[in-house]
């Protein structure tokens, strides 16, 4: 094994492990925990896992330039992040500076993922199925109306007024009506999410297509293109940067609508779990749901941006996630 002579550890490389050890010490000493909470050991275990993972990355960074650069970049951030755990533990469990049941310690919150994993799994599954169905329906309909309005003056004449009148109504305002009109709460949820996605996708698609350089169409027409080609091989790809912004805005709105629908009528999913936990005063579960939502939704946005990067390889890096 040879160590690269240029290898330099970050001057702060001991920051993250020291912070993690500090968290451990804080958690077990002093022993007088002021919040009455059963110790589950999940938090302590997670700290050790993070400790091990960091050690692993530090070792790997000796041999891999890319890991080294990444680790260097994130060392201060990781330290701060790990110190935040300690602060959280201190103001809750240790000294009860902020009260239960609204502000539980990290061990209490994290224990939910171990003890109620099955319920959470089911909630995630239910939410994702509803989200994907609604997003797909809304996205496809948004593309269809957007292309119609952007391409055809006649269709624009008929659809645009309806779009401009109905579009700005927040999808959540339809919840009471959706709940009684649709046979199941699932189909009502699909309708609401689809509606929230439909508006931005339609808007951005139609403005994208209306703004395509006329010379692109002229080029295609002199090459023998028919209308179908002009729409799907010229207008849509040329408008894609704007269509993508519509899809991104739609995704954000779909999250909002999903949680709103699940707290106001749909019996299941992560929003419903929040409502349920609140009803029993189990706020530590609410925090667990929030963490789950954060991880889940940022992953979905990340996936959308990865897809965008594949499609828009010709203009990579316009908007970053």
């Amino acid at each position, binding site marked *: 094994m040879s160590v690269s002579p240029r290898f330099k550890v970050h001057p702060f490389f001991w920051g993250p492990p020291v912070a993690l050890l500090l968290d451990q010490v804080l958690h077990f000493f002093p022993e007088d925990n002021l919040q009455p909470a059963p110790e589950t050991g999940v938090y302590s275990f997670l700290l050790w896992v993070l400790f091990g993972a960091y050690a692993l990355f530090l070792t790997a960074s000796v041999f891999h330039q890319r890991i080294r650069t990444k680790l260097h970049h994130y060392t201060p951030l990781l330290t701060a992040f790990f110190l935040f755990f300690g602060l959280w533990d201190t103001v809750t469990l240790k000294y009860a500076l902020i009260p239960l049941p609204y502000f539980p310690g990290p061990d209490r919150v994290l224990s939910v993922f171990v003890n109620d994993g099955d319920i959470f799994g089911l909630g995630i599954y239910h939410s994702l199925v509803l989200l994907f169905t609604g997003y797909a329906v809304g996205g496809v309909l948004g593309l269809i109306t957007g292309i119609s309005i952007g391409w055809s003056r006649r269709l624009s004449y008929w659809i645009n007024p309806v779009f401009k009148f109905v579009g700005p109504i927040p999808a959540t305002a339809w919840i009471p009506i959706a709940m009684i009109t649709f046979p199941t709460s699932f189909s009502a949820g699909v309708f609401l999410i689809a509606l929230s996605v439909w508006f931005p996708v339609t808007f951005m698609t139609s403005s994208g297509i209306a703004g395509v*350089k006329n*010379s*692109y169409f*002229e*080029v*295609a*027409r*002199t*090459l*023998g*293109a*028919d209308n179908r*080609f002009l729409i799907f*091989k*010229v207008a849509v*790809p*040329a408008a*894609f940067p704007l269509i993508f912004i519509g899809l991104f805005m739609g995704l954000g709105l779909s999250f909002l609508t999903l949680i709103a629908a699940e707290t106001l009528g749909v019996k299941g999913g992560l929003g419903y779990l929040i409502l349920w936990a609140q009803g029993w005063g189990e706020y530590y579960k609410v925090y667990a749901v929030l963490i789950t939502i954060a991880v889940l939704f940022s992953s979905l946005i990340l996936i959308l941006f990865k897809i965008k990067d594949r499609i*828009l*390889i*010709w*203009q990579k890096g316009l908007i970053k996630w």
Partner: protein
Amino acid sequence: MVIPAAASGRIEVKAVSRTFINHEGDRIHALDKVDLTVESGEFLSLLGPSGCGKSTLLRLVAGLDTAYEGSIAVDGVPVTKPGAERGLVFQDPNLFPWLSVRRNIQLGLEARQVLKEKKDEVDDYIQLVGLKGFEKTFPHQLSGGMAQRAAIARALINHPKVLLLDEPLGALDAFTRMAMQDEILRIWTERRTTAVLVTHDIDEAIYMSDRIVILSPRPGRIQKVLTIDLPRPRRRNDPEFLKIRSGILETLHFAEEEPILAYNL
């Protein structure tokens, strides 16, 4: 003058007028009763100052503009809309930025749904315009000259009988421009298409054309038709070349002592 026997790509423009109405409501006569026949295989230039209607005429032949009076026919078929048999190269390359060079060049085959049968030809055209090795490049990574070469290949891939060139070299620097003129001439000689070039560069017109049609503006009319029978390849500093050049300058009133400033240059 090289005119092949096969009678195809013959353009007949008869009494064509095109009137625009500007935003003040005035009628602008971009073209006024223009009569012109471009022979099959001929290289013809439309030369004149801005506003003389040369680009308008080219767009009419391309079929991109149909609001005209008179008649335009290619090989006896009236022009009513754009078609693959009339290839057009714009001043701006107008490559699709979301497609690679190869995909841009084969666009005509895709549009006519013949890509499968003619896939092998794409490489020939990439070779023809000297873009081998750049097939996977995206347009924003190309230089101006390379982008315009790709645009020319894109127009040629449909085997057009008529190649319409709308100031295709206008945006290039002088050196790239001269190199591209030779390249276009080489392609024209190889492919034997009828070529109509719109330009406001007198040297370019003399260097490339069998005939030069000089247009005068407002209303756009044919002022003079010159046959250039200098042997090819031509030399830009040939005394004959320079003589033709000063003749054209005189026709355009730029060789007079008091230049007329009415031209909207």
